[in-house]
């Protein structure tokens, strides 16, 4: 069983939902990344998504775009990224998911990239521009090695959700809003409807995580109440990293993480 599946099983036993945190590796530098991760773990994050920067992040809003640029300018390369993952692995057993764009994997070759990621300690992948139509080689390369987390959207049809869920492992990522990452639109009725719909279609066969624009404890609460098995918070953490001096960062991240995590635990 993969670390991600084990984590969800453990949470089900504890009657908790998952808090998934995203950070861009190397933003604004490597030292900060390590500090932030320690804060996330102390605050009770269940799964960590590690962003690897891509020059053209077309599904991302301004916050992650900016973080990608800075991370690239800081010289974050694939090998350095894997070294950071190995460092994280020395400190924790938490599930780690790599989020980047298709070309990064394609360029190195899916089997090679996935094998190296696995060796470094990565448990799964999220590629926002990978459609199921184009996923044959990716899926074959990841089989029994890593979880493939696909995305669905509030406008995805029922039959397509079924197909995508079949190709997904670990969890299914439901994009909360029409837009890029980090957009702030408030809780939309169509999102709540989509959570219920996707949960119904997937029949509990795979956990459903909700992300894009999730930034406050209230967002977490609303989505969990609607039936989400996990929530994904990204841009809000990057903003916190941006404005917090390094000596306070671990404490502040821990506190913010706790405030989010609390909403995933049934009282």
């Amino acid at each position, binding site marked *: 069983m993969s670390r991600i599946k084990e984590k969800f099983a453990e949470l089900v036993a504890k009657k908790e939902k998952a808090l998934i945190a995203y950070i861009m590796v190397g933003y604004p530098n490597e030292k900060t990344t390590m500090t932030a991760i320690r804060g996330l773990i102390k605050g009770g994050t269940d799964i960590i998504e590690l962003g690897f920067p891509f020059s053209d992040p077309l*599904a991302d809003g301004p916050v992650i775009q900016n973080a990608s640029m800075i991370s690239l300018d800081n010289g974050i390369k694939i090998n350095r990224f894997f070294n950071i993952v190995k460092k994280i692995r020395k400190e924790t057993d938490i599930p780690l998911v790599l989020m980047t764009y298709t070309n*990064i994997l394609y360029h*190195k070759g899916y089997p090679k990239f996935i094998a190296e990621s696995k060796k470094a300690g990565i448990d799964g992948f999220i590629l926002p*521009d990978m459609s199921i139509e184009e996923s044959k080689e990716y899926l074959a390369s990841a089989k029994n090695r890593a979880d493939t987390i696909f995305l*669905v959207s509030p406008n995805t049809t029922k039959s397509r959700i079924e197909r995508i869920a079949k190709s997904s492992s670990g969890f299914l990522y439901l994009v909360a809003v029409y837009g890029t990452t980090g957009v702030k639109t408030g809780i939309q009725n169509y999102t709540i409807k989509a959570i219920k719909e996707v949960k119904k279609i997937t029949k509990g066969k795979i956990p459903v995580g909700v992300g894009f624009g999730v930034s406050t404890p209230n967002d977490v609460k609303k989505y969990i109440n609607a039936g989400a098995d996990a929530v994904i918070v990204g841009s809000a953490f990057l903003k916190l990293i941006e404005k917090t001096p390094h000596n306070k960062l671990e404490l502040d991240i821990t506190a913010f993480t706790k405030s989010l995590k609390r909403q995933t635990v049934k009282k």
Partner: protein
Amino acid sequence: MKYPKDGKFGEFGGKYIPETLVPAIEELEENYLKFKDNKDFKKELDYYLKQYAGRPTPLYYAKNLSEKCGGAKIYLKREDLLHGGAHKINNTLGQALLAKKMNKKRIIAETGAGQHGVATAMACAVLGMKSEVYMGYKDTIRQKLNVYRMNMLGSKVHPVKSGSKTLKDAINEAIRDWITNVESTYYLLGSAVGPHPYPVMVRDFQSVIGEEIKVQMKKISNKTPDIVIACVGGGSNAIGTFYPLVDTNAEIIGVEAAGKGLKSKYHSATLSAGSKGVLHGMMTYLLQDEEGQITETHSISACIFDVD
């Protein structure tokens, strides 16, 4: 014209897109298939191509150039004489008309030097539709005149300050807008790029160039051309010229911008010096570094000097 059902040209093309765009792409494909051979649609498009854009364009015998070169008889297909000054309007009229049939209220487009943006603004103006154009910030300065023209035609121009502030970033930003406004908005792509069915649509709407060449050449010399040459940037004029002539004996030559040389980093020869990769929704040849990060293209098409 051949229609690739899965959207693939060999291993190229395809649909590498965020899931939110899938229903939009499916709706687009469905409507394109419905209208592309529809008599009334073709008649209406033909009317605008003739009366508004100025088709057919002359196939001009470049006598002086031919004599100077001393070899072949050289003919120039004068797409520059179209309304707006570029072949781009062939495609924008086709797609804008399609968008109108699809009841889309808002059109967005990307533009590099501004030609496609201007052609989009022109097509939308004549069809009474709203348009907004994403243009790299650097290009809005280098091609200020085209920004004025778009504004005059009623189009709103968004200068894009992300990434390299040029065409590829304008495409990224247009796609982000599309993801956000997916129901109301039609994305009018100008190059032979993007997810299926865009490359096919652009090819089909631009094929009027090659079709006319065939007819005109036949009249002039009772045969098809021996050699056809086109410049290749985004590929729309090239595919429109080449595609109808692919099955003839014509030798087909595409010319890419070598800039300061293919060994330098300053060129835009993606086919000659690039490698395979995934960007903007498709598998294609790209300029990228050893890790798959997309590198900047260099071209003097927008301006001969650089802007920071």
